[in-house]
């Protein structure tokens, strides 16, 4: 028999013994596995969800303007005159300058905020609107129905629904209400020649910072916001929300860590005796460590696999009903959407290292201590 075959056979025996040993302590191991799976599930759910949200936000921002220029008055965002756009057109490196009109409208009927927006192409017919899927659901509105909003002057502005935005873009478009420019100005009382902000397209990304500086020089009362900054803000917001979820969970995590440490590290008298017997009949320290490594490895790997699979199904299959209210945002109109699976391999590896490795260490250290002691002493 070759040495390799012998080694493989030896490992198979150890694995068989481990499985038999685990099934002998069925209740203890199942209990531990359940708690372990639950913990991995919660951690992985938060991880998957925030990662997918960031990914989604990144995709959305990929189509966002490279720089948004806002006018600031007394430190607050104010309407920006169309002449400002003219001043920006002269800056080298700027390809497109576009005034944008957008704002929020509170609908007391459903106690929710809508985002009203004039699409860049201004292709919405006056008197009509294109609405987001969550908004349509909240108001029970379909194509052809009429929704009316009270404007800034108290008059009622009716909008006939011309279309409902597709579900795929729900994260960003859930509460959107697209209207014609004339309707927008009439509803909010914004005079001609004034915009909410100005969007700039910069073909060369390396020029963005220089352009931003030039914008500040040309318009000292403005605030240029780079897309990268928006992306960072999204990341920070989702990280903050993850922390918000993980904070209450930290107690549970700590409880799990203590339980796992207690269960894994404290060898019972029976286990010590068993190690003593195995050593007495000729098992080496390495054999016992291998056996316990298999045991800890099987348990933690199973927990990791079940936990992450359940989290994947929870987040990408069920749209994370346990996390969505906290993680998605402050809007009352929670978008009903399915996230595109976006898993960060590094984060998954970190989760693996944080959950599997400490458990293995907690299992192996006391076993190693028992296994290097004379069998007679271990059995005493």
């Amino acid at each position: 028999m070759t040495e390799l075959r012998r080694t493989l056979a030896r490992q198979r025996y150890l694995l068989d013994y481990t499985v038999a040993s685990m099934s002998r302590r069925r209740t203890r191991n199942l209990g531990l596995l359940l708690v372990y799976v639950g913990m991995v599930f919660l951690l992985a759910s938060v991880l998957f969800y925030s990662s997918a949200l960031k990914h989604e936000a990144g995709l959305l921002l990929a189509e966002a303007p490279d720089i948004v220029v806002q006018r600031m008055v007394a430190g607050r965002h104010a309407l920006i005159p169309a002449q400002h756009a003219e001043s920006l057109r002269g800056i080298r490196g700027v390809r497109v300058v576009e005034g944008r009109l957008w704002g929020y409208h509170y609908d007391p009927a459903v106690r929710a905020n809508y985002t009203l927006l004039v699409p860049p192409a201004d292709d919405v017919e006056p008197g009509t609107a294109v609405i987001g899927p969550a908004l349509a659901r909240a108001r029970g509105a379909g194509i052809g129905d009429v929704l009316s909003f009270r404007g800034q002057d108290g008059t009622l502005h009716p909008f006939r629904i011309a279309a409902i935005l597709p579900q795929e873009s729900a994260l960003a478009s859930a509460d959107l209400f697209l209207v014609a420019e004339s309707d927008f100005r009439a509803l909010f009382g914004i005079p001609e020649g004034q915009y909410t902000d100005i969007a700039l397209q910069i073909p060369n990304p390396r020029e963005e910072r220089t352009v931003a500086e030039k914008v500040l020089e040309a318009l000292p009362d403005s605030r240029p916001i780079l897309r990268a900054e928006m992306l960072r803000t999204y990341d920070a917001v989702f990280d903050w929300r993850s922390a918000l979820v993980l904070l209450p969970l930290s107690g549970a995590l700590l409880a799990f860590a203590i339980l796992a440490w207690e269960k894994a590290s404290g060898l019972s008298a029976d286990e010590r005796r068993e190690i003593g017997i195995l050593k007495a009949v000729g098992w080496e320290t390495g054999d016992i460590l291998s056996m316990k490594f298999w045991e800890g490895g099987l348990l933690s790997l199973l927990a990791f696999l079940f936990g992450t699979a359940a989290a994947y199904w929870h987040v990408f299959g069920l749209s994370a009903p346990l996390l969505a209210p906290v993680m998605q945002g402050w809007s009352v109109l929670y978008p009903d959407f399915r996230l595109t699976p976006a898993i960060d391999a590094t984060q998954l590896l970190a989760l693996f290292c944080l959950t599997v490795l400490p458990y293995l260490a907690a299992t192996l250290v006391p076993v190693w201590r028992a296994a290097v002691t004379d069998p007679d002493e271990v059995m005493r």
Partner: protein
Amino acid sequence: MTARVELVGVRKIFNEGQPNAFRAIDGVDLSLPAGGVTVLAGPSGSGKTTLLTLIGCLARPTEGRVRLDGRDISGLPEPFLAALRRQTFGFVFQRFNLIRGLTVLENVMLPAYPLGTPHRALTRRAGALLQRLGVGHRAGAPVESLSGGEAQRTAIARALINDPTVLIADEPTANLDTALSLAFLEIVSGLRAEGRTLLLSSHDPLVREASVVDRVAELRDGRLVADRDTLAESAQ
């Protein structure tokens, strides 16, 4: 098949250097000839079990040497001691120390796992040993369901699975009635005939006075107080 075991000035102190230090073996010199049956006799607490564990490499002496075929084994590193426990010494514990939850066959096969013996060959060997010891019909039974005699035979089969040259049994008849004790001595006789070295600890007169026993070494308070060659005596 045979092996000669020698002990030179062996001492074993538990909890050395502490107020509760206890001298279990106090300077024992003993030579066990190859291929015979030696009984360590003496009252409870005389150090019989401790001496067996020192010879069987389950513990290390505090002082002195244990030699196997002239080679000092008391100072060997752990992997070498494990190899000796696995292949040279078979140990039958007083309470048998079978692993609960496993079957008789699995318990018997345990010492061979680290060798990576092919499964089929190992199962066949374990089955044959159990048959030979009269417990073949219990191979698939969990060890918790065994009677005292069956558990002992299972423990003997486990000790023999790697074909050791020395078989050590600690108080082998302590939990057995007379009939089972005699049956055990039958097994010992068969193993002796194969040329194995057998070392038993016992304060059971049935064992000490059995015809199969070649030698009785008497311990008291960790010291060897008598060493009797029963074979020579009976020849006279």
